[in-house]
């Protein structure tokens, strides 16, 4: 089975090429294009499943397949190679599974779009890149996927390229990702040369790096450990891709893309690449407690910061975007405190409930758009202030959205409960844990419950605030849209059962996920004594506490947005200063514009008009002018008049004679 690994990225690549080259001219039919795109990803999903189950029953957990050599220059030998281990197997299932559902959904959502073929071409290309990122057996193949998903993100955010805001958002996403990539490259260089020149291990292969990483333990660079420098560089890469502070501002803008894109790329898969990368290099990260602390703190601060912005947004997709940034912060918290399994666990459950939430919001926007369009009303179909009471019209969307809200809020036995709780437990009790991270995490959990239920209530409950002409035209979406919703909501509900914590494992099913991922993480956790220790009683009481926290968040939302809908208005007018800051996202974008964008532009203009034109060309043209002035002056001596020459001769003779005599 393992020699079929290459098929997994191969199918979407072929799908992308077929739709890209022939979609517009030859296939044309939406159903055929959609079927090719969805089918390609579904085939990958089948192969991934079969790989997963083969691996499950295998004692040997690490398998590599090399397709061809890529670059070979001296000590640098890079292959096109794939790596299947429990970590990549889980990611494969998430990417191709959620990916298939979202492709199916897109057939309905993108119906009637002019660039239908283009959309599926890009979406398949994205899946291909994401699979390269996940499967790469060395850092450079991962980097191909890493930048490839960035490219597809660029293409898909800019899908409606006629809108200026879409073009701006696309460019912003790519450039901010590039800032991260800068870090990734430097990290890679550092590891490659240190391992090579100091220890004669020339490799960028993940398996070999993990095996040889211990050699680096004594090496210093810039006064700190090499691993600290390298992992901090890699983490910079992760903050770009996974929208963490300070490089998160592109993600909310990325909502300019069609909603399936937001669900697939900007919630379920691409943005989790940074978390996956840390998981892949956990051996290196574990060697540097400094980096781990930085990761945990950045994750925690991002989580609470983004959640605070989520409070005041009225655009349904923006709420979800900030929620994504916040939840990614949770995953980094997990990685930072050494809870690698919990981080990957939350990545998985988040993929389910957040994809479901985004697709649900897409279903709502789709319905709103058609209703408003039908009634010729110009209202914003994404603004929650135009919604309300939609549960009557869209029962399936409402139910699935509600279930996912319960999951993200952390209500017991929904998926998010297990994963979030494990993260908080590790933050509290891990040898690499920090109480401050735990406190921030707990507060953020409460905020999450609040803003998600605020979103739920504003959209589906209360009085319908849609324009009265459009009111009755809101309908439930077709099956291609609702089926993925139902499947994802199901996963969001029960998906957490693969990781039941030991403290409440009444039926002794065991923590399946932890067991499965052990070959990847256990080694470095044991080596560096990373573990969560504490009594089951403590764990259970913390669990109860977090349930209370979630319920409090939900209750406040219920009170403010369901029972007393007049309260939010009063609240914002009372704290109008604070509200302005939160509503405007703490003015971070504006600050970045002043600090980086404008100053770079000014520097560019200076280099061009100041240095190039004035200094360099000034010198060159000045030299030219000087020669010309000099020769103009000399020209007078070449007048061509014989008596002038004669006069010069006489004068010259006089001078010479004078000198001769005076000597």
């Amino acid at each position: 089975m393992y020699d079929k690994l290459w098929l997994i990225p191969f199918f979407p690549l072929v799908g992308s090429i077929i739709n890209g080259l022939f979609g517009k001219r030859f296939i044309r039919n939406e159903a055929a294009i959609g079927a090719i795109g969805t089918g390609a990803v579904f085939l990958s999903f089948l192969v991934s499943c079969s790989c997963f189950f083969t691996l499950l029953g295998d004692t040997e957990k690490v398998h590599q397949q090399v397709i061809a050599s890529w670059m070979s220059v001296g000590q640098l030998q890079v292959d096109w190679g794939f790596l299947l281990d429990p970590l990549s197997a889980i990611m494969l299932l998430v990417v191709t599974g959620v990916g298939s559902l979202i492709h199916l959904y897109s057939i309905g959502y993108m119906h009637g779009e002019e660039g239908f073929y283009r959309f599926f071409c890009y979406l398949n290309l994205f899946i291909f890149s994401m699979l390269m990122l996940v499967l790469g057996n060395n850092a450079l193949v991962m980097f191909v996927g890493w930048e490839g998903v960035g490219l597809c993100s660029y293409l898909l955010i800019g899908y409606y390229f006629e809108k200026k805001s879409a073009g701006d958002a696309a460019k912003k996403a790519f450039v901010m990702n590039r800032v991260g990539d800068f870090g990734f490259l430097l990290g890679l260089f550092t590891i490659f040369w240190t391992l090579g020149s100091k220890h004669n291990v020339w490799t960028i292969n993940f398996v070999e790096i993990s095996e040889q990483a211990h050699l680096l333990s004594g090496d210093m660079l810039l006064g700190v450990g090499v691993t600290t420098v390298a992992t901090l560089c890699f983490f910079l890469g992760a903050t770009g891709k996974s929208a963490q502070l300070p490089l998160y501002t592109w993600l909310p803008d990325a909502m300019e893309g069609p909603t399936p894109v937001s669900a697939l790329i900007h919630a379920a898969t691409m943005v989790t690449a940074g978390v996956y990368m840390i998981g892949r290099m956990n051996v290196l990260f574990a060697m540097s407690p400094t980096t781990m602390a930085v990761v945990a703190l950045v994750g925690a601060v991002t989580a609470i910061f983004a959640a605070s912005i989520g409070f005041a947004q009225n655009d349904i997709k923006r709420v979800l975007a900030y929620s994504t940034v916040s939840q990614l912060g949770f995953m980094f918290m997990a990685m930072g405190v050494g809870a690698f399994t919990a981080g990957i666990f939350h990545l998985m459950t988040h993929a389910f409930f957040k994809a479901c939430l985004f697709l649900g919001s897409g279903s709502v926007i789709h319905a709103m758009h058609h209703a408003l369009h039908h009634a010729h009303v110009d209202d914003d179909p994404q603004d929650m202030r135009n919604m309300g009471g939609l549960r009557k019209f869209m029962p399936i969307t409402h139910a699935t959205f509600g279930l996912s809200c319960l999951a993200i809020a952390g209500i017991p036995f929904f998926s998010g409960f297990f994963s979030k709780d494990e993260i908080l437990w590790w933050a509290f009790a891990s040898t690499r844990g920090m109480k401050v991270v735990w406190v921030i995490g707990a507060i953020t959990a409460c905020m999450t419950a609040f803003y998600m239920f605020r979103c739920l209530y504003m959209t589906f409950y209360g009085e319908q605030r849609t324009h009265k002409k459009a009111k009755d035209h809101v309908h439930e979406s077709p099956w291609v849209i609702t089926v993925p919703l139902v499947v994802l909501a199901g996963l969001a509900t029960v998906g957490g059962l693969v990781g039941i914590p030991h403290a409440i494992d009444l039926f002794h099913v065991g923590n399946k996920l932890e067991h499965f991922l052990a070959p990847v993480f256990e080694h470095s956790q044991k080596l560096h004594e990373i573990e969560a220790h504490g009594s089951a009683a403590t764990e259970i009481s913390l669990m109860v506490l977090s349930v209370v926290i979630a319920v409090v968040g939900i209750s406040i939302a219920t009170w403010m947005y369901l029972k007393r809908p007049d309260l939010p208005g009063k609240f914002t007018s009372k704290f109008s200063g604070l509200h302005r800051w939160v509503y405007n996202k703490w003015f971070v974008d504006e600050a970045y514009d002043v600090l980086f964008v404008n100053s770079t532009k000014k520097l560019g203009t200076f280099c061009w008009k100041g240095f190039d034109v004035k200094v360099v060309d000034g010198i060159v043209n000045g030299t030219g002018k000087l020669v010309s002035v000099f020769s103009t002056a000399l020209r007078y001596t070449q007048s061509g008049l014989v008596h002038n020459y004669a006069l010069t001769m006489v004068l010259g003779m006089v001078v010479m004679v004078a000198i001769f005599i005076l000597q």
Partner: protein
Amino acid sequence: MSNLLSLITFFPLVGMVVLLFLPRESDRLLKTVTLVITLITFLISLPLAFDDAFRTSAEMRYVEFAQWINIGEYFRMNYYVGIDGISLWLVMLTTFIMPITVLSTWHAVEKNTKGFMALLLLLETGMLGAFIALDVFLFYIFWELMLIPMYFLIGIWGGKNRIYAAVKFFIFTAVGSLLMLVAIIYVYYYAVKAGLPFQSGFSIAHFYQLDLPAHLQTWLFLAFAFSFAIKVPMFPVHTWLPDAHTEAPTAGSVILAAILLKMGTYGYVRFAIPLFPVAAMKFTPLFATLAVIGIIYGALVAMMQDDVKKLVAYSSVSHLGFVMLGVFAMNLQGLSGGMLQMINHGISTGALFLIVGFIYERRHTRLIADFGGISKKMPVFATIFMIMTFSSVGLPGTNGFVGEFLILLGAFESGLRWYTVFATTGVILAAVYMLWMFQRVMMGKITNPKNEELQDLSGREIAVMVPLLVFVFWIGFYPNTFLEKMNPSLENLIQQVKGKQQVALLVEAPTPSVAKITVNE
């Protein structure tokens, strides 16, 4: 065939003579004949690319030798040519780009076609000759030979400001060349005095064996390096380039970017560094600094341009900065990255100039502000433009990435670590200026009604781009085809240069401050 290189080099010249006998009004015939000549040149050069001996041998191959000029007992220059892995791909790049360039002029050049085509062919001979010359004086002759046709191409067929640009181009390059000429003659007399047989003329291989004292090396190196720096062009002697590019006709810009600039970087690899290794080592910090400044400076200035062509021209300054950084890293990764990036820049930037030419022919403007929303009207063009944009940005999977990655990786190891950190920011800036330009030209709504009438690419135009696209992905996914044939020669070169540098350091070893340079950390 033992005269293969001569055949390739002088076939265009013969073609030029044929062209001179054709009637000057028959525009299409002249273009077709030129296209056929360049295509044949490409075809006869193909066996070089398929020669597997380059994978194992660092030697000069296809060597031809003939006595040429004798002046008395002391002055001798020979017709001495050959190629190794270093020049192989540059020769191939030249023969490959020429037919593409000719095809691109189909509608672009209408005025005095005969002169234009004749100059193109003369230029091709000049460029090929410079790459294959193994006699330094012969190299110099070809080097100067290239200058003349380019001067006329810009000065006659250029844009509004063409005279200024042509003169600027000529003066910058000529000033550099003169210094190099003095240095070449000095080395020759030094060699004869040192007892090298004068029959070997200006043979580069013999010059390599000279042990020039350090102080002489300094001056000679600077003379060569200055000349090449202008051609590359390196900061701060780059200002002729934007003017020359902007004013040159599309074909001229393509050749200038794709091949002529490579003369400068090739000059460092073949002449300036191996002839004067000790001086090169001494000046490495200076040149690495200039290279890094070029990368960032070129990118910053490119960002602010309002003329698409000028933007691409400044991006060349940035890209060639990467090449120079790789060359001065003087290790295998850096150097082979640099060599590969020369090819990549030829393909990607050549393609971008063609792309600018396509829209210029349609709209007779190159100002970014005059465009916007063109993707809608020209989807095929948009796709090709986007691929080339990302190739220029260095996206993995395209050629640009492999070159940049190898350069940065090599430079990081070579003791130029901090330079590399700054150079890597160029990766970010490249995305900024290219994508911003792409957005303003291609995305958004069509605001200018003239853009409503735009036609998508014709079959001929697509045919021009397809070969370039093939190499964008070929080098991106399987660069080994090219790397494996250049590496033996590069390894040999590095060994030779490093060997001499080590010796020089040993001599000076008592002064600990100098010895520090060898330590990488």
